[in-house]
């Protein structure tokens, strides 16, 4: 089942690259992918922890326990669901490429395939490799079809993320070697098993923890390693911005939950510099994301930059949940990954639609668009409300859990202060998102915005489905949590 899910976009992309097929084929692939994911979602037995729908090849290298194996548990399934819906929206709402449309569509499908592969892999090597696979078309698309200073942005994101990947790779190798040799494995299933959890001596945990946190941190735009993100997202074509910020970026957080939390649980308590522990430093970094980046976002005057920076900011909350190291916080951050992915994808989709119509995203030139494009306006408003954490949307439910989790039992004395400080971020995010919404959609319509045409037909449905999922997650978080809980409990034991 998962193999088919993975093959659908890959085959689609290959066919497009060979010159067969068009946007229609791309849409069919995305639809198939969504349908398959939904089937898996409903067929998954959420009462059990551990992987289901598994598939494994024979060992690929003699002597190393390395195989091509797929499987999902609650956490990866939730992210697959996210990637399916975001891919669907990305394909549907992608503007028509003027040059080389087939390569454009193939790239979207390849990103989607890479993301699917990364989340469905049970093997550390393929987990890493699929992520790299998704990055390559990302760079290509920014460089070829981006806007603004696209070449510079493409170079920056390429070099920066490649650096992150290398640090991550070093971290993975270090982690692999830190595990006592009879237990070494690339197999995530084996690594997740309970007996692995306190296998690495506490003193040896710090170095891999640092490498992995910095490596994943760069991929997730953890402060101060964030500066690739705003320029990258602002010049990326709409589908790339949606897919990368919505889904691909979650890879790093997924990695934190998969590897760092279960295998290196005590590293955070170790001192790094005088009496600052590793966890304190992570908390400082995530406060940088929430407060400092929040302020930076307020200063932005372009819609795409506002969304891009806000996406960087919200990573702070997810890290806060991870830093809490308890079930409430982890569940909160896992659900927030899902919720943030949907809301930021919807925001970028609307921003892309505006760029198509206006040609610019400068907030000073926009205004009053809610009159002529009410559907886009409503979607933007809903996604805004979601992203600033209003009840009724999944973001609120998950942020609440993050806050409660982080406040629960102070692992370090600093985490409570950090939680209160990051609460202030909720105010900051309301400031910039509402300002942006007001500038773009409220007020008197500008001359050009009064002539815009709204979305039609199936595009409405697709964008609406993102919002619907957000609402479902907001009203019935219990349902989504029931998928996450067994997996995360296993990670914490």
């Amino acid at each position, binding site marked *: 089942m998962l193999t088919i899910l993975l093959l659908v976009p890959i085959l689609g992309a290959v066919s497009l690259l060979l010159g067969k097929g068009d946007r229609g084929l791309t849409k069919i692939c995305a639809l198939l992918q969504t349908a398959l994911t939904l089937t898996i979602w409903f067929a998954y037995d959420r009462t059990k922890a551990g992987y289901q729908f598994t598939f494994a090849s024979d060992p690929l290298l003699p002597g190393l326990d390395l195989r091509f194996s797929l499987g999902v548990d609650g956490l990866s399934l939730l992210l697959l669901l996210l990637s399916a819906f975001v891919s669907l929206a990305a394909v549907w709402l992608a503007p028509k490429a003027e040059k080389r449309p087939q390569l454009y569509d193939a790239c979207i499908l390849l990103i989607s395939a890479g993301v699917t592969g990364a989340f469905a892999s049970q093997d550390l090597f393929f987990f890493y490799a699929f992520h790299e696979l998704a990055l390559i078309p990302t760079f290509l698309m920014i460089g070829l079809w981006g806007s603004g200073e696209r070449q510079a942005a493409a170079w*920056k994101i390429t*070099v*920066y993320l490649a650096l992150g990947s290398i640090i991550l790779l070093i971290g993975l190798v270090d982690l692999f070697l830190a595990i006592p040799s009879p237990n070494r494995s690339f197999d995530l299933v084996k690594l997740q098993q309970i007996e692995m959890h306190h296998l690495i001596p506490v003193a040896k945990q710090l170095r891999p923890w640092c490498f992995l946190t910095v490596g994943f941190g760069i991929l997730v735009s953890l402060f*101060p390693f*964030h*500066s690739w993100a705003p*320029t990258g997202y602002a010049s990326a074509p709409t589908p790339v911005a949606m897919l990368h910020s919505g889904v691909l970026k979650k890879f790093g957080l997924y990695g934190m939950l998969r590897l760092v939390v279960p295998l290196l649980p005590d590293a955070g308590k170790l001192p790094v510099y005088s009496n600052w522990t590793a966890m304190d430093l992570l908390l400082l970094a995530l406060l940088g994301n929430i407060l*400092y*980046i929040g*302020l*930076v*976002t*307020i*200063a*932005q005057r372009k819609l795409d930059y506002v969304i891009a920076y806000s996406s960087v900011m919200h990573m702070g909350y997810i890290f806060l949940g991870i830093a809490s190291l*308890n*079930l*409430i916080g982890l*569940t909160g951050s896992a659900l927030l990954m899902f919720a943030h992915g949907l809301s930021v994808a919807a925001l970028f989709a609307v921003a892309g639609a505006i760029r198509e119509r206006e040609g610019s995203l400068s907030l000073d030139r926009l205004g*009053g668009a*809610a*009159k002529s494009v009410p559907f886009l306006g409503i979607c933007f408003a809903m996604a805004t*409300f979601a992203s600033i954490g*209003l*009840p*009724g949307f999944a973001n*609120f*439910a998950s942020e*609440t*859990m993050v*806050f*409660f*989790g982080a*406040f*629960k039992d102070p692992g370090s004395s600093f985490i*409570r202060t950090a*939680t*209160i400080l990051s*609460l*202030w971020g*909720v*105010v900051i995010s*309301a*400031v910039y998102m*509402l*300002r942006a919404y*007001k500038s773009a*959609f*409220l*007020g*008197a*319509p500008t001359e050009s915005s009064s002539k815009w045409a709204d979305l039609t037909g199936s595009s409405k449905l697709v964008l609406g489905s993102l919002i619907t999922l957000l609402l479902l997650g907001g009203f019935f*978080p*219990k349902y989504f*949590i*029931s998928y996450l*809980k067994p997996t995360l409990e296993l990670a914490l034991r």
Partner: protein
Amino acid sequence: MDHTLPWLILLAPLLSAILVLLFAHRSKSLSVSLSLAAVFVSLIGSLMAFGISPEALSTTFTWIDLGPIFKLNIGLKIDALTKVMLLVVTGIGALVHIYSTVYMAEDSAKSRFFGSLSLFMFSMLGIVLADNLAMMFIFWELVGVSSFLLIGHWYTKESAAKAANKAFLTNRIGDFGFMAGILLVWSTTGALGFSEIQNSIGKLTENPTLLTITGLCLFCGAVGKSAQLPLHVWLPDAMEGPTPVSALIHAATMVAAGVYMLARIFFLLEPSAIALTVIAWIGAITALMAALMATQQNDIKRVLAYSTLSQLGLMVAGIGVGAWAASMFHLFTHAFFKALLFLGSGAIIHALHHEQDIWKMGGLKSTMPKTFITFLIGTLALSGFPGLAGFFSKDAILLSAYHKSSGIFVVGLVTSLLTAFYMTRLLIVTFLGKGRTEAAKHGHDCPAQMTLPLILLAVLSVIAGYPIFAEFVFGHENFHAVHAAPHTILVPILAIGVFIIGTASALAIYKGKNNDPIRISLFSNRFYIDEFYAALIAGTQDMLASLSGWIDRYLVDGVIVRGLSGAAQGTGYLFRLLQFGNLQGYAFLFGAGVVTVLYLLIK
């Protein structure tokens, strides 16, 4: 039946909001009837709730479930306090719905208006019915959203869009404190439900500092929602919304939510004298300053808005002096006459084609007699005319203040004096004398759908204060808590005295005037607080924002990131200098190299 009743009350408006906003928005009449039906279901449900025999009834739905370590419930609870609020919210809600059918008849986005109104009813009822802090916070935020939607109803108007944002953001600041308070309560007691917290209050009172901090954090939420100083600035601006909205949300219900919340968690505030003192003084200062501001406003709705601020201040001060029941009583009566006054002003605005400047009105007594009489009753009730609702409830607060703190009592009296003064001023300038504009001369009473709510509210403004009625609504026990403080004849005499002084001085100053004889720019400019905040925000937040924007662009991205990539590039550049491209030069270097090597070898 008993257990489904609260759900029915709560969910009917939600259902209507969903149906209207998603499906029925094309048909205005369908939207209106759905919304009306929902509010009447809630109203009837609330009335039926009075018949429920057990004092407290609760039912829950688990919202977030992580097993024994963490559960968030949506729990509904009906007790005596809830019943009062239910009656206020659904009763005034229903009247405002009826009123709006005419007031908003011409509006192109009538469906959106009624949908948002239903959403508001849902959120407000959620606050009222909540049995735990987390759920209260959820609906607290939702009320903020629906208020945002309704203030910004005419979003193409720049001022309305701005006011909506301002209201939302100011409330968010309060909510920040509220959430922090909730976290503190939860981490100390491990509970979120009101009754559970009450049971384990001992864990909080062990640490008085923590208790005070917790109480003040929670109070922040009330400061935001009930528009107390220093977060009061959003309420006057919120008058940009349609007038029925101002009546329902920004006078009678949503702004009262803060007071309601304080009454709910009073058991938590009570042990901390410091917290109570802070609350009392913030309320008192708000009451006084807002009353002063109200004396110099010329927009009919703004006068009422500042008056609302002032009365809310009084209620909060009441909580602060420990008289939570009296505050709830004042909330209850105030809801009726303030809604009446707002709807009355709406009738005037409607009749005068959206004229809101009181100096462009005048003489409406003869052209709009029904509106005049009801408005008069509302004014008298608010000013504390003996025998009307406001007199009783204000008296109850003043009485408690008299026993507790003379400072608060004096401030309360001065506020009452000013209230009588500015309300009389408003009444004289608007209704008496001669019409100052053409529109004012052709005023007319509004259709029955608008007058009927006025008359009903006028009746309620008269009777709501009398013990027979109030005792029924409040329940026997709570009603006696209202009058817990020992009586003195001094307080009512002083109250009547300040009423007479206030009214008489306004009559003397404003009778027959065509423009304001008093000009106090400090008051008309609202103590320059808005300007101060604008400067403060520009000076701190925006400055910090542009500073960090600059740092991010030029230091983090420019110096550090570009610096690193620049270092790599620079090294490459240095090495590139060696490639000077002259073949003979290379040959020379080659030769020189060989000679050097040979020399070194031979030596």
